[in-house]
């Protein structure tokens, strides 16, 4: 069964550093998403991406965040200057043409900011 692949599985970074979280969505999917989950809390929407541009973003997705699909396969989330409160599990998800299906989620990247 096709999978969404996220790397790395765990990243530790110092406050103020830039991090790039990587995702390889399912190849024929059209819609791409980033969500985050602070430990013990709900899964929060960050941003959606379609046709090579952001289609919607939440209030969490401020100027410190950016997304890119540089080569038609990878989908990246960049945090320019990490803060302690950015520590969370970050999930990438993709969705194919049939919108009534649920997303396929990656297994997540655990980001720890120290």
């Amino acid at each position: 069964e096709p999978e969404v692949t996220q790397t790395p599985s765990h990243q530790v970074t110092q406050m103020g550093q830039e991090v790039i979280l990587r995702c390889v969505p399912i190849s024929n999917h059209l819609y791409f998403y980033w969500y985050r989950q602070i430990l013990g809390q709900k899964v929060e929407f960050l941003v959606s991406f379609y046709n090579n541009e952001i289609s919607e973003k939440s209030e969490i997705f401020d100027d410190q965040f950016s997304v890119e699909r540089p080569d038609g396969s990878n989908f990246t989330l960049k945090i320019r200057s990490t803060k302690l409160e950015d520590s969370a599990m970050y999930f990438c998800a993709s969705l194919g043409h049939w919108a009534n299906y649920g997303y396929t989620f990656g297994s997540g990247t655990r980001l720890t900011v120290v």
Partner: protein
Amino acid sequence: AQTVTQSQPEMSVQEAETVTLSCTYDTSESDYYLFWYKQPPSRQMILVIRQEAYKQQNATENRFSVNFQKAAKSFSLKISDSQLGDAAMYFCAYRRSRNNDMRFGAGTRLTVKP
């Protein structure tokens, strides 16, 4: 704004028994999708079951079924013959059909007692 409410932070069930997890949502849309996701300790997000709002028939997937009450905006998950492997966080999620951004409830932690 669409909101999803899971009023049960924790539930427990005896192995082989049946348990129902509650979910309500708020929307002014008539066409949308509802989902239940399972998050085991690995923190992978796994789709359990989905329901299209235009369908009156309740979705069923093996031991998992839903009770979809559109007028009441209620979408509960019933797990029959509970197994130890069902222990996880369960998230209810809503998605409009006009865009594909999914919104999650706060989750219910299900414990299965042997």
